[in-house]
């Protein structure tokens, strides 16, 4: 359902429609080529030996028996990598230290988590490669692991990295620490404001590591040629990022590395950093043959992706009349084995839905003996929103104000100053909350015992970054669009639609193709909710480029000045002579008989991302005897700016909501005391099934982003921000118990409601 806050004239022809996606046919017939579907002549299969321990020195690795197994062609360890300097490498958003990246890909002198890669084999079959792993003899000297963020921050805790110092806005501490960085934000005067508050609530929250849970495991097939050219076929959110990471890690010129992005079976942020390609590269270099590596599910869960477990202490204050005036927060996020948790975004998004003048927030990025975290859909924001939206809910309750009304009267709007110091451009927060207040769901009675309704809001920045693409006009009036962004959720459609809109032609006349890193200009990752925004903007610029070229060509044909020709609704016409006009297809048919081919080019780095808000409503029922929570009804509201392809916007909203519901209820990394991960399978890492979710109603409340030619805001990430607190607030109303530790699993519900440990 699309609700518009401004009466939008029917100004678009393509935007806002729901065409079939260009890559759909291949995906419903099984023809689409994903990374694991690659098969090359002479290809070897790789496998990786992983640490059974959470924290240990590697004393010795004996690969001789494995190397002797018939069919094994190479065995490698970290020592096979060239040395790299300890420099930062930008991953588009955020950065990674090259040494840490290399140590994560294959452990150097220490293993830092259960599942940490230690050695790798290439063999003539995948089965032989895994057999060979059992023949590699590794001697470990065990160290005490530290698994919880609060333990890791304590003095005297086991230290993961002897050289790690706490970084504080560009300045480093002087003693070894597991606290990789400390962030500090201040807005107004929180101390003073708390003195003026009538109601103050302070609570503590914890969350566990959770995984993105993409269905397709990581994969990479690498061919290192004799002339040091490297080709990588893989599943990645950012082919150019992979190219740059590989060039730096392997000390190769960038143009020696070509990355071919295959279809990608989900990423959610977890397929940006590299895991397999560097290993595949050194195996291929050693054997002179292409090497294919595909993770199994256990490897995916043990050694890739999760987002942080956390501890948050949050205090908020409000006046009697229901004004939020002060917040103080302390956020500690687990980074896993290497620095880089999303605590900064957690701090900066937490208060985004509110106009709150005084806040002091501290953030801590903390290493623990668990896998290095990766980005996960609005990284950091769901965790802090869980805390904030729980406290806000409790404040509203204490003040006797309806929880949505309370959110409305404190809602951030254009001009509201945020914690990071910036003010909001036009945003849709208020309109969205009003739509939720007026909705059928919020006004429907919820009857029956053990049921409750919860709401929560969420904010995410969205990202801009670099996009490049080009498009060729074909003789029959069709357009071939070349782009460099992996299409995870329908972006071929949303980009092609913006080009078609700009050109005034049907979407079906545009054929988009995602190409490799040698075949199009630089593109940043498919992430940060940026593709429909930024690559869509590039499509607009590219379309405008084509329009100019088409007008110039028509002017030449008619012997007019370029200014005498205009482009209106897909028709190129002389301004002063109604008889002189071409449809797009007519002029396209004359391109090659009148001059050079017409190719539009665009490269952009837009910044005016607009910001996105989501508000969710959930009804739940709790079985008081078993502690199980069933979601009965769920509605997601969101401001997409302009929904280019509304069906895929709804899909993002529904998908984000369901990931968040899983996070709230049953998903968690379960560690044994020795630091081994106990539930590294889809059997015991409990993502929602069809029976765990209701239909998820998606309501788009459009407030166009003035910073985009078509008003687009990113839509992919923000829908995962509110569900954690939405569910917790609903369970509170069903049980009378506030759940401040996730997940709200049956075990935890029984513990909190019946004292069953």
């Amino acid at each position, binding site marked *: 359902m699309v609700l518009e806050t401004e009466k939008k004239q029917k100004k678009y022809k393509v935007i806002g429609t729901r065409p079939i996606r260009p890559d759909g046919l291949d995906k419903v017939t099984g023809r689409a080529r994903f990374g694991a579907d690659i098969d090359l002549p002479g290809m070897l299969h790789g496998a990786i030996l992983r640490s059974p321990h959470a924290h240990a020195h590697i004393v010795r690795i004996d690969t001789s028996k494995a190397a002797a197994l018939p069919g094994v062609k190479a065995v490698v360890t970290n020592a096979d990598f060239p040395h790299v300097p300890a420099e930062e490498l930008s991953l588009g958003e955020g950065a990674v230290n090259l040494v840490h990246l290399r140590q994560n890909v294959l452990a150097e002198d220490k293993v830092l988590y259960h599942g940490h890669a230690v050695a790798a084999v290439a063999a003539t079959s995948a089965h032989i490669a895994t057999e060979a792993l059992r023949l590699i003899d590794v001697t470990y000297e065990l160290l005490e692991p530290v698994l919880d963020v609060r333990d890791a921050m304590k003095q005297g805790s086991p230290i993961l990295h002897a050289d790690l110092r706490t970084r504080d*806005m560009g300045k480093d501490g002087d003693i070894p620490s597991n606290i990789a*960085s400390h962030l500090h934000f201040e807005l107004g005067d929180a101390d003073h404001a708390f003195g003026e508050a009538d109601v103050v609530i302070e609570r503590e929250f914890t969350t566990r590591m959770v995984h993105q849970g993409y269905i397709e495991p990581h994969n990479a097939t690498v061919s290192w040629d004799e002339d040091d050219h490297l080709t990588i076929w893989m599943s990645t959110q950012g082919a150019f990022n992979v190219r740059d990471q590989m060039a730096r890690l392997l000390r190769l010129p960038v143009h020696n590395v070509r990355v071919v992005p295959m279809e990608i079976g989900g990423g959610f942020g977890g397929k*940006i950093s590299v895991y397999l390609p560097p290993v595949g590269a050194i195996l291929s270099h050693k054997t002179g043959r292409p090497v294919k590596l595909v993770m199994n599910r256990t490897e995916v869960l043990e050694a890739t992706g999760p987002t942080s477990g956390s501890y948050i202490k949050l205090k908020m204050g409000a006046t009697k009349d229901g004004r939020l005036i002060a917040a103080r927060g302390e956020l500690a996020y687990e980074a896993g084995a290497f620095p880089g948790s999303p605590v900064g*975004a957690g701090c*900066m998004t937490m208060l985004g839905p509110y106009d709150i003048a005084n806040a002091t927030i501290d953030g801590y990025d903390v290493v623990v003996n668990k896998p290095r975290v*990766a980005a996960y859909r*609005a*990284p950091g924001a769901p965790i802090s929103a869980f805390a904030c939206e729980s406290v806000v809910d409790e404040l509203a309750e204490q003040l006797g104000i309806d929880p949505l009304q309370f959110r409305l009267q404190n809602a951030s709007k254009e001009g509201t100053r945020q914690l*990071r110091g910036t003010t909001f451009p036009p945003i849709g927060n208020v309109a969205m909350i009003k739509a939720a207040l007026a909705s059928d769901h919020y006004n429907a009675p919820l009857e029956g015992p053990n049921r409750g309704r919860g709401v929560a809001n969420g904010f995410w*920045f969205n990202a801009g970054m670099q996009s490049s693409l080009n498009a060729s006009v074909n003789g029959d009036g069709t357009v071939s669009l070349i782009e460099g962004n992996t299409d995870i959720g329908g972006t071929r459609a949303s980009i092609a639609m913006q080009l078609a809109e700009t050109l005034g032609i049907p979407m079906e006349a545009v054929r988009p193709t995602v190409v490799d890193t040698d075949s199009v200009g630089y593109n940043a990752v498919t992430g940060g909710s940026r593709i429909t925004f930024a690559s869509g903007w590039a499509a607009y610029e590219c379309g405008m480029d084509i329009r100019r070229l088409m007008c110039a060509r028509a002017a030449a044909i008619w012997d007019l000045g370029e200014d005498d020709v205009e482009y209106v609704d897909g028709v190129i016409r002389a301004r002063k002579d109604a008889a002189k006009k071409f449809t797009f297809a007519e002029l396209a048919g004359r391109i090659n008989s009148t001059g050079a081919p017409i190719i539009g080019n665009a490269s952009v780095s837009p910044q005016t991302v607009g910001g996105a808000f989501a508000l969710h409503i959930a009804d739940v029922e709790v079985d008081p005897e078993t502690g199980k929570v069933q979601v009965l009804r769920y509605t997601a509201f969101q401001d997409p700016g302009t929904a280019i392809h509304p069906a895929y916007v709804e899909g993002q909203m529904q998908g984000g909501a369901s990931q968040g519901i899983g996070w709230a209820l049953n998903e968690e990394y379960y560690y044994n005391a020795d630091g081994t991960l106990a539930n590294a399978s889809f059997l015991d890492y409990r993502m929602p099934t069809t029976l765990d979710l209701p239909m998820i109603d998606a309501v788009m409340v459009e407030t166009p982003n003035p910073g985009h030619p078509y008003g687009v805001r990113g839509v992919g990430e923000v829908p995962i921000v509110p569900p954690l607190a939405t569910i917790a607030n609903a369970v509170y109303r069903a049980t009378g118990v506030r759940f401040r530790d996730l997940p709200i699993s049956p075990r935890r519900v029984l513990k909190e409601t019946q004292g069953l440990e």
Partner: protein
Amino acid sequence: MAAVWIPPQLRYLTRGAERATVPGDTLRAVIDALDAAYPGLRDRLCEADEIRGHISIVVDGDVTQRGLTQPVRPDSEVQIIPAIAGG
């Protein structure tokens, strides 16, 4: 003159000042002017001739993708924040 918000951790360099107004039509010029007023600030923000990897600079509400060449207007607001990642 552009208004620069000084993050709390760097205020020891600005003698406690939360805001500084400095001239400059690019981010580089703004940071140079800041460093002239408050020596040491540039080193905390930049490495070689680039913004440090873990720091983002926001000009008029948007995280700059253009680094030190980012244009700055006389009425611009500039914030210095930790870099963030998106998924």
